[in-house]
C-alpha cells in the first residue's frame, strides 16, 4: 500500500510535537510494510530509512530554506537566481500547487495529511488521483488560539477539508469533540488515535548518566528546595499565566520552591515580566529552548512536572516526564489525560486547586513516589505500534481490494 503523507516538519527540523508525532507514526507504519512518501515544504536531509522524504517545491524553485523553525518565513530560491520570502499562509498555498503537480506523476492509494497547513494540498492530491483523503488532526485552530476563535481563514480551510475528507483521525477524544463542536462533523467520521511515546528516545537519554546540568538546582535541593518544572513552547495555549499565578500561592506557603520554565515562544518576555510583577522573580528560572541532555535534565531535576495547558489536543510532555522519573500534574483539558490515570489532574482555570496540588506534591514524598511508580506502569503499556495498528485499519477500510 502506497501512502502520500503530507506534513509540515520532521525532526530534527521540527519546532514542536507535530514533527515528532509524524516521524514516530511513520516509523511504526513502515514496520507493517506500508510504503510512505512523506512530502515536506522545505529541502533538508532527514534520517528516515523507513520512508521516502520528498520536498515539494514550487515551479522553478530548486531550493527552499526555512528561516529558523518550520513556522517562520521560508526563502524560495529559483533556478533563474530569483529569491523570494514567503509567510506561512503563502507557503501553504505554494505547497498545495507543488503537491498537486507531484500527484499528477505518481500513483498513491491514500492521501494522509497532517494539520491545516497541508489540508489544501491533501484536497488537491485527492482530486488529482481520485483516492481517499484522511486528515490527521493534531490540533484545531481554537486550540492554537488558546480557546478563542482564531484565524477565520484557517478555520475555513479546516472546515472545508474536514467536510470533504473521507475520514478524520483525532489525537484524542478532546480533539474529536472539538472537531464535532467547531465544524459539525459527524461522530462516525472521526477516529481517535492517541499519540504515544518512543521508549527508545527516553532510553537513549537515560543512558547519558545521572550527572545533571542544573548544578545550582541540585545544590538548592540539598538545601531543602523543591523544583517544579514546565517544559514546552511558551504560547497562549500552554496556560503558563495561570501556572505563575498558582506559583505565587505555592511560594507563599512553601518559599523554598523553584519553578523551572524551559522553552521559548511568543510569551517569553511577558512571562518574565509577570513573574517579576507577582513578586516571585527569584523563584522562577527561565532556561530558554533546550535540546538533548539539558532538555532531559530539566525533567530529571524536577520533583514535579506540571502541564497547565488551556487546550492540549494530546500533550506528550507528561509522558516524557514519567519516562525520566518525575511525577506529573496535568490539566484536565488535555488529550493525554484520557490515557494517563496516575497523575494529578486539575482544571486549567482553577489556580487555587493547582497551587494546592503543587504544594501537596512537593511536601509529600510518598504521594510523589506512588504517582511515579504507577505512572511508569502505565507508560510501559504505551506504544506507537498501537497507534499505527489503528491507522492501518482505517487505511484498509478505505482501500477496498488493495492488500498491504
Amino acid at each position, binding site marked *: 500500500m502506497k501512502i502520500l503523507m503530507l506534513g509540515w516538519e520532521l525532526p530534527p527540523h521540527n519546532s514542536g510535537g507535530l514533527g515528532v508525532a509524524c516521524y514516530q507514526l511513520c516509523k511504526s507504519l513502515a514496520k507493517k510494510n506500508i510504503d510512505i512518501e512523506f512530502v515536506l515544504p522545505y529541502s533538508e536531509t532527514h534520517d528516515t530509512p523507513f520512508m521516502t522524504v520528498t520536498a515539494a517545491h514550487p515551479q522553478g524553485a530548486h531550493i527552499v530554506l526555512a528561516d529558523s523553525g518550520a513556522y517562520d518565513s521560508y526563502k524560495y530560491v529559483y533556478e533563474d537566481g530569483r529569491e523570494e520570502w514567503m509567510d506561512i499562509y503563502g507557503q501553504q498555498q505554494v505547497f498545495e500547487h507543488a503537491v498537486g503537480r507531484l500527484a499528477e506523476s505518481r500513483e498513491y492509494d491514500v492521501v494522509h495529511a497532517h494539520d491545516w497547513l497541508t489540508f489544501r494540498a491533501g484536497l488537491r492530491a485527492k482530486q488529482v488521483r481520485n483516492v481517499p483523503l484522511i486528515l490527521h488532526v493534531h490540533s484545531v485552530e481554537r486550540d492554537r488560539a488558546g480557546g478563542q476563535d482564531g484565524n477565520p481563514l484557517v478555520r475555513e480551510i479546516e472546515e472545508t477539508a474536514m467536510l470533504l475528507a473521507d475520514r478524520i483521525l483525532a489525537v484524542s477524544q478532546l480533539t474529536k469533540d472539538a472537531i464535532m463542536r467547531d465544524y459539525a462533523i459527524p461522530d462516525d467520521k472521526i477516529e481517535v488515535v492517541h499519540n504515544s511515546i518512543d521508549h527508545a528516545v527516553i532510553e537513549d537519554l537515560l543512558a547519558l548518566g545521572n550527572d545533571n546540568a542544573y548544578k545550582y538546582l541540585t545544590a538548592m535541593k540539598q538545601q531543602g528546595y523543591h523544583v517544579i518544572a514546565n517544559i514546552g513552547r511558551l504560547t497562549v495555549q500552554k496556560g503558563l499565566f495561570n501556572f505563575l499565578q498558582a506559583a505565587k500561592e505555592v511560594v507563599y506557603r512553601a518559599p523554598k520552591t523553584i519553578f523551572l520554565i524551559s522553552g521559548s515562544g511568543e510569551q517569553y518576555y511577558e512571562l518574565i515580566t509577570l513573574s517579576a510583577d507577582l513578586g516571585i*522573580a*527569584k523563584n522562577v528560572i527561565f532556561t530558554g529552548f533546550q535540546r538533548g541532555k539539558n532538555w532531559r535534565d530539566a525533567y530529571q531535576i524536577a520533583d514535579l512536572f506540571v502541564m497547565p495547558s488551556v487546550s492540549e489536543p494530546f500533550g506528550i510532555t507528561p509522558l516524557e516526564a514519567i519516562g525520566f522519573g518525575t511525577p506529573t500534574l496535568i490539566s484536565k483539558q488535555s488529550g493525554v489525560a484520557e490515557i494517563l490515570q496516575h497523575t494529578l489532574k486539575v482544571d486549567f482555570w482553577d489556580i487555587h486547586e493547582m497551587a494546592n496540588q503543587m504544594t501537596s506534591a512537593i511536601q509529600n514524598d510518598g504521594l510523589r513516589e506512588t504517582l511515579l511508580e504507577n505512572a511508569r506502569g502505565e507508560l510501559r503499556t504505551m506504544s506507537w505500534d498501537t497507534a499505527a495498528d489503528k491507522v492501518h485499519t482505517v487505511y484498509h477500510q478505505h482501500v477496498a481490494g488493495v492488500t498491504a
Partner: protein
Amino acid sequence: MSKAIVLYLHVHQPYRVRHYTIFDAGAKHDYFDAPAGDRTNNEDIVKKVAAKSYLPTNKKLLELLQQHPEFKLSLSITGTVLEQLEAWAPEALQSFQALTETGRVEIVAETYHHSLAFFYDREEFEHQVQMHREKIEELFGQTPKVFRNTELAYNNDLAYWADQAGYKGILAEGWDKVLGWRSPNFVYQPTYTENIRLLLKNYKLSDDIAFRFGNQAWSEWPLTADKFTHWLNETGDATNFNLFMDYETFGEHQWHETGIFEFLQHLPWEWLKKDSKDGNSFMTVSEVIDAHEPKDHVDVPQTITWADSERDLSAWLGNSMQTQAITALYELGNAITATGEWDLIEDWRRLQTSDHFYYMCTKYFTDGDVHAYFSPYENPYEAFIVFMNAYHDLKFRLAEKGVPV
C-alpha cells in the same frame, strides 16, 4: 558680577555580566569574564573607551591646564572603572593622574561600585564610600570633600547623611520641580543641614553639550565655544554655571567627528579672554562652595536623579524586574558580608552597580533610545536573565559555605 564655570565630569564603567546561563550557575563564577569580541567583554570596552575618549580628552584637558593657569575642573571616577583602567588601560589611568598632579583638578566622592546602596543598605553604602575614598587617596593623593551619589540620586536624607559625614558640598540635578522660580546658577544649602552646600546642575547648559551637541536637527547646531560663552556672559544674575556631565561625552557619546574636542579646546579661551566681561573664571566644586554664601535652602523630600525626562529613579527601579532583582541582591547582603570572603563580597558588590538595573529598563519610547544605546544586551529581559542567574550563583556559593539560603 564675577562668574565661574564649574565643570564636573563623571567617569564610570561597570563590570558587565556576560551571557551567564542557569547552566553556569553552580559551575562557574566568572560572571564578568565574557569571551573576547563579545558585546559584554569589559576589557574590549574599556580599551575602546580609553582610545576614543579617555586618552584624547585627557590629552586635551592637560594642554588646557598647561595653557590656562585659570582653567580648573572636577572629576568623579568610580572604583570599578579605576580597577579596569589599572588592569587594561594603565596609560589612561596615568593620564588622569597627570591631570590631578596640576593641583587644579578636584576628585569628588561617591560609592566605589556606582551603586544605589544608599536606598537599600546604609552600612554597605558607607563601606563603599570609604572604599572609594581610600582608592582615590591611593591613586591621586587627595581626599574628596564634596559628595555625589550614583546617578546624582539625591534627597534630603542623603544631604543630611553627607552633612553628618563631614562633606562640605553635595551635587544634585537642578530640576525645575525642586528649584521652582530659582536659578541653578548659585550655591544653595539643603534643608535640615548645618554646614553642607548644594550645587545644582544646570541641565539646560549641560545637556546642550552632553546630549544636543552633535544633533544637526537642533536649532542651535552647530554649537561653538564662542556662542556658548556668549550665552553665559549674557546671563546677568549668576555666580556659577554648573556644567555636570558624563566624562564619556567627549569622544564616546559625542564622537570626535562632531567637533566636541574643538569645542573643549576653545571653551577656556573664549571664557577667559580679556575682552569678555571681567571676573570670568573656572572653579572646582570646593572652590565655588568656599567663594559664595548659600542663596537659599532647597527642600528635596523625594528622590531626584539626572536621568530621563522624569528625573527620578524609574530608569533603574521603574519596573518590577528591576525592583525584584535589586531587592533579591540586597537580601543576600548580611549573609555575604558575614562570610568575610573577599571574592564573594566583591562579586556581590559588582552586581550592585546601577548599570545592571538600567539595562533592564523597559521605558522604550522617548527615553528608550538612550537606554538601548548604552546596553550591551539584546533587550531588558536578557539583561534580567543573566543578572538573576548570577544572583542564583551567589546563593549557590553561600550554600557551598554552609550558609542557609
